[in-house]
């Protein structure tokens, strides 16, 4: 046979062999609505978890996993945000002065490695968190109520005495007692979240974590990113135990010794799939049971029945988005034109005039924004206090598109100079964020319509640059969102309105009356709190601190065979409490 002939035969043979291997594998998975992998739950999402250390992790992706592996003392009951169900604590009481909280610890609970749960573990969990106090972590939420400070570190690089931390949490028999430094209404809510998870003291110490001494405290305080002993290892009491964490895939196995009702499937796989097309196809093919669906693609999945999906809609997420005004722009800003009110720029305190801010508010078209960008699934709010939070005032007046009123206020601004001379500045958004870009475009178009001398340029900048610019108050206007840490108005208002709040500070906003109200609100009784927070919502609106874009309504996309999902507004962004779900028709 000629060499050419032989080559051809070899080639055909290898193609046949490959086909023989590939085709059976392919045929095995045809698209019938048969439950795929019935004993495995697969979650396709976009967020890579940061750390599995409950005291360290602050992002929602990590939160999702920590919730499956670890447990807190109490958690919200069902869909409520102010009623609690016992988890690792069986009963609790709060002293009349609101400074002492006591929890009775459940007996008969074991950690994944077999150790018993004791009150000492609970005490250790909170103390070790404060000892560690990661610089970008959630510990400030425990420092505020327990020690009335933001962190363990003071000025000059010193740390507070260890005794301060250890006296905040104490063991009394089968009870654990928290000694607060100030009356703090949302304390129980904070205890529900992942940073209040309970870890195993003996196991942690064996992994090299804090051993109780002063020396160990100083050595472990303020760790470098991801350098805590519990970063990639886990030992909790929860319904799942960690099997492996490869970048992009976290595999968890059912805890068969769980003290409560065991999970309905043996394996929980958390997968990061950043490419939308791939994620969508995995969802439609049934290769995953839940997938994260960006808002702009919901039209591709409308036929729920044909795709065998169950979609939960209009979920009131505790999230607030706003277009902030910087009232004191830093002189180094590149976005203010020539810095003068002569039509070719804006002065650095341009937004300190209330009429400017109110005028801009009336120039924003919420209807178009909500319809076109969020496909109608967003509620406008008047202030950072969103629906679902206690003391939300649904009767609070809000702005709406009214070019006549906008004109009126802008004519009054800066003694009429704004109207006469016009202005020019650049508004930026972080590259890739289409909804933010659209908000910029809407504002720009409407302002130009009111008066052609109002010139706004829209520019995209990288996220890192955005952070940089924002942190130095270089951006005249910037969009930012806030996701609830815990469901209380304090969590939302403090950053935006208190002069030391992270956003208010960047905006250059400072109002001592507001500060006083916020500080009083945290510990006041229920009626007084209602008064205070209603007042603050009104102030936010009247002072027009920003253009309050609103509260996004969420959607969750499951395959139709997933049952048992309950949405609680405080759940981390994805599912939360996966073990309660089951796969059946």
């Amino acid at each position, binding site marked *: 046979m000629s060499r050419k002939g032989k080559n051809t035969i070899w080639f055909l043979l290898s193609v046949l062999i490959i086909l023989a291997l590939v085709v059976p594998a392919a045929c095995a998975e045809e698209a019938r609505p048969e439950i795929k992998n019935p004993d495995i739950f697969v979650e396709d999402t976009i967020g890579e978890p940061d750390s599995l250390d409950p005291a360290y992790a602050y992002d929602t992706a990590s939160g999702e996993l920590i919730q499956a592996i670890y447990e807190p003392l109490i958690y919200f009951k069902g869909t409520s945000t102010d009623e609690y169900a016992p988890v690792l604590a069986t009963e609790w009481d709060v002293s009349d002065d609101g400074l002492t909280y006591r929890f009775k610890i459940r007996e008969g609970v074991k950690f994944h490695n077999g150790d018993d749960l004791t009150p000492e573990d609970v005490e250790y969990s909170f103390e070790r968190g404060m000892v560690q106090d990661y610089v*970008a972590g959630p510990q400030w939420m425990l420092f505020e109520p327990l020690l009335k400070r933001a962190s363990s570190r003071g000025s000059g690089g010193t740390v507070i005495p260890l005794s301060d931390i250890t006296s905040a949490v104490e063991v009394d028999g089968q009870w654990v007692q928290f000694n607060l430094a100030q009356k703090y209404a949302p304390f129980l809510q904070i205890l529900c979240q992942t940073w209040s998870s309970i870890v195993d003291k003996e196991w942690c110490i064996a992994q090299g974590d804090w051993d109780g001494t002063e020396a160990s405290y100083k050595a472990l305080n303020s760790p470098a990113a991801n350098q805590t002993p519990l970063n990639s290892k886990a030992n909790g009491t929860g319904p799942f135990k960690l099997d492996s964490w490869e*970048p992009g895939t976290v595999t968890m196995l059912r805890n068969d010794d769980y003290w409560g009702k065991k999970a309905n499937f043996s394996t929980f796989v958390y997968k990061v799939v950043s490419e939308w097309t791939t994620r969508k196809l995995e969802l439609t093919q049934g290769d995953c049971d839940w997938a994260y669906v960006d808002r702009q693609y919901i039209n591709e999945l409308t036929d729920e029945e044909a795709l065998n999906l169950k979609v939960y809609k209009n979920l009131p997420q505790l999230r607030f988005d706003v277009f902030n005004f910087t009232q004191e722009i830093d002189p180094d800003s590149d976005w203010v034109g020539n810095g003068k009110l002569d039509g070719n720029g804006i002065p650095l305190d341009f937004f300190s005039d209330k009429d400017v801010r109110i005028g801009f508010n009336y120039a924003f078209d919420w209807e178009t924004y909500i319809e076109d960008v969020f496909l109608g699934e967003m509620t406008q709010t008047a202030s950072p206090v969103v629906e679902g939070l206690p003391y939300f005032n649904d009767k609070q007046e809000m702005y709406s598109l009214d070019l006549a009123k906008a004109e009126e206020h802008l004519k009054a601004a800066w003694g009429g100079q704004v109207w006469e001379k016009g202005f020019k500045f650049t508004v930026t958004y972080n590259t890739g964020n289409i909804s933010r870009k659209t908000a910029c475009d809407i504002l720009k178009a409407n302002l130009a319509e009111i008066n052609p001398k109002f010139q706004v340029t829209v520019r995209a900048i990288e996220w890192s640059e955005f952070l940089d610019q924002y*942190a130095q108050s270089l951006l005249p206007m910037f969009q930012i969102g806030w996701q609830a840490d815990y469901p209380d108005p304090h969590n939302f208002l403090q950053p935006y309105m208190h002069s030391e709040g992270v956003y208010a500070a960047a905006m250059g906003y400072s109002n001592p009356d507001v500060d006083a109200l916020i500080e009083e609100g945290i510990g006041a009784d229920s009626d007084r709190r209602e008064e205070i927070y209603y007042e603050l919502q009104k102030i936010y609106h009247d002072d027009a601190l920003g253009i309050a874009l609103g509260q996004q309504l969420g959607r969750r996309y499951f395959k139709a065979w997933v049952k048992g999902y309950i949405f609680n507004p405080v759940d981390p962004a994805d599912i939360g409490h996966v073990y309660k779900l089951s796969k059946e028709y």
Partner: protein
Amino acid sequence: MELRAYVVRRVLLLVPVLFGVTLLIFGLLQLFTPIQRASLYISDPKQLANLDQIIERYGLNDPIWKQYWTWLNQVFHGNLGWSKVASMPVDNAIWHFLPSTIEIVLFAAPLIIFGGIYLGSKAAANKDRTVDHVTRVGAIIGWSLPTFWLGLMLLMVFYGFFHGLLPPERLSTSMQLVVTSSGFHQYTHLNTVDAVLNGNIRVLGDALRHLILPVITISVVNIAFIMRLMRSSMLESLGKGYILTARAKGLDERTVVNKHARRNAMIPVLTISGYLLASLASGVVITETIFNYRGLGWLAWQSAVRLDIPTVLGFALFTGVLFVLTNLVVDLLYARIDPRVRLGGQAK
């Protein structure tokens, strides 16, 4: 110049090159402010409250030479730092992601090189006949296709339209669990090789099935490129004097083409192999992103976008070493094939 001395000298040159690469990166860091670099550690604007502390903690405000020195010190102690993108130490990250990329390249490279050379010389030997025109048009279209477009189109047809026939990612979920279970031993972390070593046909089939699209995506463009180059350089060498001589001597066309023309035509191809490596490197990034194949391409990209400097540096060191050694091999091959070239040639 003596061969051994030459090789030793070239390997020693690794040192200044690596210094050069890492210094260049640190130099580029000058373009970023400390806050921009701090963005790596901030996933949510809430954490901005502690921005100063974060910058302090990681020494982002220190002068560049101090940061470089700290890093250098770390490296000499065997510590390449922590990769935030991969959630593991940098050296682990590189070893962890390497197998995925190697697997794609392992299947793609022979296809590209042999396919390209074969098609190219065939086209040149049959210049202006049908074979030439057909392969030429095919190659030109292949070379003009955007890789990412091709990948997405292939996915659409073979995954979407044909209901999951050829899916993305490395393995299906059930096979993934088999591979990470205790019953399966991961010798090389290359799924195909491991499957063979473990005698598991199902995993092998699954892995191959997942490899088909990425390999095709990355090969098309490169085959076309090699083919074009091979053809034009073959044509050039076929026109050379020694070819006429060979023909005049009475040698058959086959020997003329294979032994003489092809050998000399491969010189530019060899030079381009460095370029090819770079092309494969970028092709792999796009391919890995589209098919959710977590390999080195994906790691490089993520670390660049998120300003994960430790990973960037570690990755640069790795590619630096790889590249220098590859170039050395190419230059040696060069000298072997073309006797006119003297290693480290001096002007007379």
